[in-house]
């Protein structure tokens, strides 16, 4: 069991800044995110794209913003549970919460801050009726253990970097690799496209375009897929695995079933005070919340995170005095023993 002061669900910009603000109040944080790396949308969707409305940064790349936020909160030693999705929340008799992930990792804290953005990123599934019946029985939406494809026939669908990169990688591992895409053009790094072309010429990748997987067949596990080339009759290809790689899309997911008030796919909060939800002790900050006048902006998430931490302090330290301090005046004492402070003014008399 991981114990902390604040469990933060979502390691995007809002969640990461909350770690810093909590640290100033001597509160420890642990972040849970379904993605394998911190940064949320900023690192998953558009790391190389610029953002122009972060105060004091005329322009900053989304990936760089994530780096800066990680650097800023590093001294407060946040814990991370990455690549796992927060699944359930259970309120304990002592008022604390236990958050359990889809992999069974348990976290306990008196305060939970949901900074889940648009939700957790889930693979986009192709529109094939019986596809769910074959999930983990030959159909995988992401490749976790490449070794399981050794000596197997594999069909990959998709036209982006992940489809290209995995086709290249598995060409060395699998018995056969068939790459199916709806168009003749692929959207990926030039090197990857060229490499696939080269492997195709060598007969190591079976490239079928423009085409789609239109059906999948098997008994207890996947046995074949039906491929339809544009303006041609469908044909059957025997295969052990079918890996559709059509990107990820965010879904609110299990959080929607936690008894929180939901409106417009977002969690309703008290914006007059502290961004607390209808369940005391559970807050929602950043893009995941809604209130009258809500704007889904990173800078608004920063503000909400700051106010949430003040309220969390009161829950965790009932009745304990506190006044807001300015970092320029007080400096920053990290949990790792580091101290940052403004240099002292030099007092020297003229001779």
């Amino acid at each position, binding site marked *: 069991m991981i114990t902390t002061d604040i469990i933060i669900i979502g390691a995007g910009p809002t969640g990461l800044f909350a770690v810093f603000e909590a640290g100033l109040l001597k509160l420890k944080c642990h972040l849970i995110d379904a993605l394998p790396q911190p940064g949320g949308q900023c690192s998953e*969707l558009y790391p190389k794209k610029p953002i122009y409305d972060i105060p004091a940064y005329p322009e900053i790349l989304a990936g760089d913003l994530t780096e800066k936020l990680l650097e800023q909160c590093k001294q407060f030693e946040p814990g991370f549970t990455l690549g796992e999705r927060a699944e359930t929340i259970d309120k304990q008799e002592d008022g604390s919460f236990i958050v359990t992930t889809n992999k069974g990792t348990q976290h306990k804290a008196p305060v939970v801050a949901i900074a889940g953005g648009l939700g957790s990123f889930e693979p986009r599934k*192709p529109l094939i009726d019986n596809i769910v019946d074959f999930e983990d029985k030959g159909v995988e939406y992401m490749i976790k253990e490449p070794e399981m494809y050794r000596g197997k026939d594999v069909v990959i669908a998709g036209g982006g970097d992940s489809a290209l990169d995995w086709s290249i990688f598995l060409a060395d591992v699998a018995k056969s690799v068939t790459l199916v*895409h709806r168009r003749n*053009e692929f*959207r990926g790094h030039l090197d990857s496209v060229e490499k696939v072309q080269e492997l195709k010429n060598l007969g190591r990748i079976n490239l079928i375009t423009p085409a789609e997987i239109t059906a999948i067949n098997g008994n207890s596990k996947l046995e074949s897929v039906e491929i339809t080339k544009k303006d041609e009759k469908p044909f059957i290809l025997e295969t052990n695995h079918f890996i559709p790689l059509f990107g990820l899309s965010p879904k609110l997911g299990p959080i929607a079933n936690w008894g929180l008030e939901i409106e*417009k*796919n977002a969690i309703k909060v008290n914006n007059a005070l502290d961004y607390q939800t209808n369940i005391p002790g559970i807050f929602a900050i950043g893009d995941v919340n809604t209130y009258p006048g809500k704007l889904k902006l990173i800078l608004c998430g920063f503000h909400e995170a700051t106010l949430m931490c003040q309220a969390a302090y009161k829950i965790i330290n009932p009745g304990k005095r506190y006044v807001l301090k300015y970092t320029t005046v007080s400096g920053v004492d990290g949990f790792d023993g580091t101290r940052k402070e403004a240099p002292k003014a030099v007092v020297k008399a003229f001779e």
Partner: protein
Amino acid sequence: MLILPDLSQDIHITITDRAGETHKVEAPTDMAMNLMEVIRSYELAPEGTIGVCGGMAMCASCQCYVKSNHELPEMQDDEEAMLSEAFYVKDNSRLGCQIRMTPDLEGLEVEIAPES
């Protein structure tokens, strides 16, 4: 002297939502708005089901079928690539976020594609 606001720049577009209901709406052409944003501003699709990526042609949640014969801005590589990976795509599919509201789109008719 009373100066009336100039509304001549607003265009009229017809949008069929995902439930099949048709809405006639007005859209300004001087606010750099795109079709996805117009749909959101009239709340014709629930928040969180449209414009998920914010308008970067990276999610296809604003896919629309264009039903009128307007000449639309040419498709850029990123839109074409996104549509090639999206679902429910037809020949008249476009991403709403890539269609900017301009006066020559007066009378545009579109239908919002199913959520996927």
